[in-house]
């Protein structure tokens, strides 16, 4: 295992989580789920690195996600928290990706963190459907997380 994603999210997003009253769920080492008032941010780690997917869960858990980093870069502004790291240093790359995303969300997307949905009316936002299996597993993980707290 190259990195425990949940430990990194817990460490690097602690300020964001506390300030915005979010909740971190820990389904496994390669996925983290951050719950907001009516949405979830899915943090996934795969061969391309980190990805952040927004999942609306109001009135129920949706069947599509939005690539949050893509949206923020394209429609708002991506904020860099420091110099670009050596691409071979995977852990530092992960840490910086999480730091950049946390800072960007806090500075240019407080409405999203508050659970506002106006931005979702923009139909140009790319939506990625979840598979049945993904939806089932996410529903299970989110429900279990809600019951833990």
């Amino acid at each position: 295992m190259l990195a425990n994603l949940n430990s990194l999210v817990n460490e690097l997003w602690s300020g964001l989580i506390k300030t915005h009253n979010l909740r971190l769920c820990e389904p496994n080492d390669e996925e983290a789920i951050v719950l907001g008032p009516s949405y979830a941010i899915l943090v996934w780690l795969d061969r391309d690195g980190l990805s952040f997917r927004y999942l609306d869960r109001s009135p129920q858990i949706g069947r599509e996600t939005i690539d949050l980093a893509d949206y923020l870069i394209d429609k708002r502004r991506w904020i860099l928290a420091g110099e670009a790291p050596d691409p071979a240093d995977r852990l530092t790359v992960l840490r910086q990706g999480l730091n950049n995303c946390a800072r960007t969300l806090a500075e240019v997307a407080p409405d999203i963190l508050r659970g506002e949905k106006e931005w979702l009316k923009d139909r140009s936002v790319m939506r990625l459907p979840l598979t049945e299996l993904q939806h089932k597993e996410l529903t299970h993980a989110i429900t279990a997380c809600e019951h833990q707290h």
Partner: protein
Amino acid sequence: MQSIIAELGNMKSRDFGPKPGGFNILNVPDELYVNAEQFWRDFNKPWLDAAIARGDKIVFATQPRRDLLWRPNLSNGTYELSGFGREYYYLLNRGLASRL
């Protein structure tokens, strides 16, 4: 693809050899991944080259959409080809995939 891998039991392997009557999925151990460029050079491209040399049928399990072919680079806020994007354009340039 993640669902397919999950249902197959997530078996990680470096065996890129032929599987008559079966199929190949690139799913090497996590420890072998350093970054996207290294993974493409050391594993992904050789895996595709082996399949092309054998004349395997190559089927996309994912639609080649723009948002899947390109992904944000979180370190600098630009866009770069995703692993899937590299595969798609590599096959497209060899006449083994259709244009979008």
